[in-house]
């Protein structure tokens, strides 16, 4: 499946990632090379093979008891916020 600049733009939009126009061609080329490499998996016969859902075997872990606990984070949740409005995080609005 060849990856071209149009595809790069589409995936970049999905991933909310800006790829500079000057970088688009290079990215497309590099991704195409990697995808060509991974094509080798298409040739394998995987009939009856389950995908790995967990790597270690063993009894399932215990679920967490339902107890509310005050947060241990000493700082105010907003202290690292790039922009805030009082008690709220603030972001530009969706168009």
């Amino acid at each position: 499946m060849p990856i071209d600049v149009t595809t790069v733009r589409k995936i970049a939009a999905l991933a909310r990632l800006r790829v500079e126009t000057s970088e688009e061609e290079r990215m497309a080329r590099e991704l195409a090379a990697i995808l060509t490499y991974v094509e080798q998996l298409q040739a394998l016969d995987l009939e009856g093979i389950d995908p790995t859902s967990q790597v270690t075997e063993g009894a399932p872990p215990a679920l967490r008891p339902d107890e509310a606990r005050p947060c241990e984070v000493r700082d105010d949740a907003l202290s690292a916020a790039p922009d805030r409005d009082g008690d709220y995080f603030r972001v530009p609005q969706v168009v």
Partner: protein
Amino acid sequence: MTEAARPVADDPKAAVRARYEPVIGLEVHAQLKTESKIFCSCSTRFGAAANTQVCPVCLGLPGVLPVLNERAVRFAVMTGLAVGSSIRLRSVLARKNYFYPDLPKGYQISQYDRPLCEGGAIEILAEGERKRIGLVRIHLEEDAGKSLHPEGKEGVSTTRVDLNRAGVPLIEIVSEPDLRSGAEAYHYLTKLKQILVYLDVCDGNMEEGSLRCDANVSVRLRGAKEYGTKTEIKNLNSFRYVEKAIAYEIDRQIARIEGGERVVQETLLWDSARNVAETMRSKEEAHDYRYFPEPDLLPLDLTESWIEGIRESLPELPDALRERLVREQGIPEYDAEVLTETRSLATYYEEVAARSGQPKLASNWIMTEVNAVRNKTGQPIESFPIDAARLGDLVGMIAGEKISGKIAKTVFERMLEDPDGPAAIVQKHGLLPIDDEAALRTLAREVLAANPGPAAEFRAGKEKTFAFLVGQAMKQSRGRAHPEKLQAALRAVLAEEG
């Protein structure tokens, strides 16, 4: 009679409508009443100041991991068992990837192709008929935070984000497209809420957001096998809006098709002020959520014995309770339906019925007098000022003819303010009935003396004035006169002097 031969009203719109069959499915999100969030120990309590019920996990800080809340799983399984779903022994939590400011991790942990519960059904009563609405699935997921969109200064708009709600556990209940009208949708939601409240897994409050509903609506010509194009309606904040919005959308789709246009698959927002559904302006591209199994949680493995344990501890559910009341108390289905609106109301009823020994009378009193007050005040039965014991005593007094039905209503009014028992209140306010023959005759004579004209008319043969005289006697006795005995006394006195 076949569909095609159904008589058609004079209203031309109805004629057109009758040619189409609406097909509706509902997706309901219910917030689970756990103490803590689904993946962290933050409190789920409603109403805290913004961004105070948060921690590194639900804030989506770098390096954090989710840990699944046992009670959230339990509540989801209870719900599935209550509606007859089959519970998967191994279900998988999955990431639903999209970007939004109230979604801290940039993905929501939900379930995709291996949900916890599959199948099941909810039975509704629609237009007097019982109808089975199938369920596709019930699955667990986490709630997002809240985005608020106030206008900023200089017209620059911003969004404010509060993450208190992020991580609150939800179950998503997806129905089959078995509903056929807005009214049926209303009944479905009512029944679903009832079940969730019976189980005590959810408050079921749409106005507060603990219950949310999106509707999928399509129409097709009656008899057609294929489904029509469906639209999704969001922003439905009450059961009534759901009903209205669906009715609106059905008509809108029919009008389009009749007008030669296609229905466009889209998401609409209900505007409850203007009673229309509008296309959502943004989100034009279909979402690609890129679901994959959540690697931080491992598959959820349950045992048969754990599930059976939950099944055994389920409370009696509305349908079973209703049937039991009909069977044990001999009351009509309609009554049982009303009385089982909540489990606490049903318990109240059973106590009143037992105390008074009068199942049908008890039912009447609750359905009319008690509920009339509650409809005005909005009180739940738990905080109703007349407890089951006192009401039971009152109903017992009526049955034992200690007071008349009419006096009982007065006593009832007093009992709302006065915590005393009905017998004490009757005493206190001199409401004892007058049923002694001598006293009634004295009363009759007083009334006749005070109303010579009507008395004479009656004796002259005008039967109608009898009712007037009875009324006067009742008035004078302040309702305490025993109705039948009073009438007998009055007739006797009239005959005496006649």
